[in-house]
């Protein structure tokens, strides 16, 4: 922990003043949990709330990739199982006026609590007990299965989610990224047994495999409230296998849309990954993005785009909806292609300044900060998290130039995979 702080302070002293981070800025600290695992803590004592996350590296569809949904079910069951106090983690958070969110991705899981500061220590104790020493019973499993079933049904009506899953299945031939985070049918959810969930939770939710990320008005001494866990080593970030030449395709669902994806650099290639974040911001950010601004909102049209920073590789993903998806697809492809020519220096400078401002806007709340710190740690590059003002991310962002961005676009965004999602006739009928 001390070493990390010293490095950060040294970086501030030698190079960060030009980036707008003066010596007065607070920076996160990090260290080891009492019984295995790590934490990163970003304290802001001017706020009345605390964000408390725990993140794990674990495959969403199980260690054999044969049980889509098991990660969410295990996490929900752990959060709703009764602790020694007689309440579940979920119950404790709710009764303290907070909110619990369970985020499951193909290769990582994040449990996120936002609570008034006065409840922070209690929630850390409960979170560590619920996950580092899970005691999942049949009641908790049924709650988790019901929750997953509702989410699974809702997912069928989200073109963004359907296209995301379909594109990942097309880009990756195997590994967690190939599988959806939730199965398509409720029957598949019911098939996941208590024994399977317990086995999965025991392996995935080890404290040694965890990073706790805390932000807002948090006290470093709260770490002492982590009483469960066991020493060990974390799992390595999980890789998925890329398809050689993924083909365009079409699928049918309850809703319509178009999805476009490109595989990008790994999280370790910080400069290229930051360049693609810049591209996503420049083209697709709501209200300010070049493409987003050109979309007529009256017809319910939308274009949503982001670069998803993953261990290896990242994915640039764009989803399109509305009544003119084919037209919008051409706009998107044209705009991306145009960026393979360097932007005018003055325009680039303004776009980079806007990008840096948007980064700061998106990481101003404790819940955003804790999620961001946890995600980057779980994906294998904690020192690159944008929520940390002393991280390498800011240096990369501030030193982007037009020629480099154009070269990254040429390298990674030349060969898109496109999936058309068509609403089935039955869906169209019921919609009208």
């Amino acid at each position, binding site marked *: 922990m001390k070493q990390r702080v010293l490095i950060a302070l040294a970086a501030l002293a030698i190079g960060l003043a030009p980036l707008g981070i003066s010596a007065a*800025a607070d920076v996160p600290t990090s260290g080891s949990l009492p019984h295995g695992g790590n934490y990163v803590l970003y304290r802001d004592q001017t706020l009345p709330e605390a964000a408390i996350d725990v993140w794990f590296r674990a495959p969403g569809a199980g260690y054999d990739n044969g049980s889509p949904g098991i990660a969410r079910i295990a996490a929900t069951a752990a959060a709703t199982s009764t602790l*020694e*106090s007689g309440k579940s983690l979920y119950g404790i958070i709710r009764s303290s006026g*907070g909110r619990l969110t369970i985020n499951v991705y193909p290769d990582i899981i994040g449990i996120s609590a936002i*609570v008034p500061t006065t409840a922070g220590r209690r929630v*850390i104790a409960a979170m560590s007990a619920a996950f580092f020493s899970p005691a999942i019973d049949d009641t908790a499993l049924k709650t988790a299965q019901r929750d997953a079933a509702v989410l699974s049904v809702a997912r069928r009506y989200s073109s963004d989610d359907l296209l995301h899953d379909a594109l990942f299945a097309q880009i990756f031939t195997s590994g967690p990224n190939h599988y959806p985070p939730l199965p398509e049918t409720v029957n598949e959810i019911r098939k996941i047994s208590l024994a399977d969930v317990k086995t999965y939770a025991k392996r995935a939710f080890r404290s040694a495999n965890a990073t706790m990320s805390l932000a807002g008005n948090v006290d470093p001494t709260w770490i002492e409230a982590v009483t469960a866990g066991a020493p060990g080593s974390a799992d390595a970030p999980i890789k998925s296998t890329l398809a050689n030449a993924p083909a365009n395709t079409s699928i049918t669902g309850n809703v319509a849309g178009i999805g476009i994806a490109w595989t990008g650099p790994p999280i370790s290639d910080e400069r290229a990954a930051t360049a693609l974040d810049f591209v996503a911001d420049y083209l697709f950010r709501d209200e300010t993005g070049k493409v987003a601004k050109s979309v007529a*909102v009256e017809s319910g049209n939308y274009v949503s785009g982001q670069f998803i920073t993953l261990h290896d590789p990242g994915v640039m993903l764009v989803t399109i909806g509305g009544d003119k998806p084919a037209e919008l697809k051409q706009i998107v492809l044209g705009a991306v292609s145009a960026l393979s020519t360097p932007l005018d220096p003055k325009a680039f400078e303004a776009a980079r300044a806007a990008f840096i401002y948007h980064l700061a*806007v998106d990481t101003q709340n404790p819940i955003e900060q804790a999620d961001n710190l946890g995600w980057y740690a779980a994906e294998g590059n904690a020192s690159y998290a944008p929520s940390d003002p002393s991280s390498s991310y800011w240096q990369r962002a501030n030193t982007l130039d037009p020629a480099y961005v154009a070269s990254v676009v040429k390298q990674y965004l030349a060969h898109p995979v496109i999936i058309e999602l068509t609403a089935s006739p039955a869906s169209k009928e019921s919609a009208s």
Partner: protein
Amino acid sequence: MKSRAAALALICAFAFPSVALAAAPAVSNSGGTTVIQQQDNAAPLVHVTFVVRAGLNRQTMAQNGVAALTAQTILRTAIDGVPLEDAVAAHGGGVHFTVDPSDVRFAVESTPAQASTVFDLFRRAVAAPAFDAKTVTSARGALQTQITMNQQIALQVGMDMLAGNDAASANAALPALGIPGALAQMGPADVRDFYAKFYRRGGSFVSGVGRLDALANGTLEALAQTLPAGDSTAVAVSLPKLEGTTHQYVTHRDIAAPWLIAQYPAPPIDSKDYGPMLVLSSFMQRTLSEIAQVPGVVSSTATSRAVGAMYQFDRTDPNLTLYVNGSIGNPNRAFATALSVASILAATKLNGPIDEFKALAAGDFVSESTSLESRAWLAVLFSQNGQSADYVGRTLNAIANTSNADLQRVARQYLGNPAIALVLPRDNSAQAQNP
């Protein structure tokens, strides 16, 4: 063994709350402007909210939209050849405005490195807006685009309709951005006159949050001195009140499902009823969500988010609004149940403990008061009338001091006859047959 240790840790956690809440914002006066400062070393930005008494109640009924047009003209004013909002964005910042019944408030922010430049750009535009035809026309176009977008947000449409139900002055209930027809009639002279008359220092606020240390000394005070000294007064416009105890407003928009919205009057923040109303609002929010949600589900879903309760304590005429998005299974049932719950709360004695509802209200408040913009605005709101700007402390105390009797008193006093707005989908098939 491990479980026992965890239980002990829980007991300790209850016994020794270890974190102090934030200090209250620092408040001073600079020549008629109240300057509020909340330094935050962990914030990634510098944010300043600038409040001027030039809101809706400074317009006549015929001037619907001039307050917004004036504010948008400032954002379109060219500084060194570039419109302010573009110049701010190009320097790593953002600027936008909100028109309230009595105020217009500009929210300006930037990265610490660019703060001096961005706030200087803003100060110059506010001090000398460009009232030429090109700038005003550009501003009008931007407003009309925004109005078109707002018309697709059913909740916003409903709230706009309900705004007039209890407004003290008719002009304060006009649509915040005006209506396209009225805006089309306004030219540079209207905007120039409105600015000259109402952009005054009296009653204004400059509220800064975040990395204020990145600003040159005196920046906030200089912003406060931008406008000429003096006060302005509201334009009083009274219209006859509608008769009857319950009012219903119905309109149609191009939306997929109907929205049902009920609104009750509610107390302001300096009322003894403020804390109890926060608790009631949170209780209503949770009850509505649980009515709509599949029983026992842990995750937030589109269904649970389709209903809600909002206590708008920052309005000149505060209100409690309940809403149901008809895309859920049976919106009538959810809406009827919500209204019934409100009535039952008013009529039935509450005997059980309300600690969980109080925790919920505290949690809701703090989670909505962490963005820099909300912190700046809440500090303004709470420091009005010379009171403490400590919005967190005052609110948490008000919630903590709420008793069962308070809850019932407030329910009885306010949750009587709601005004109701229905925003319904257009019948496009009928339109097609009878164009």
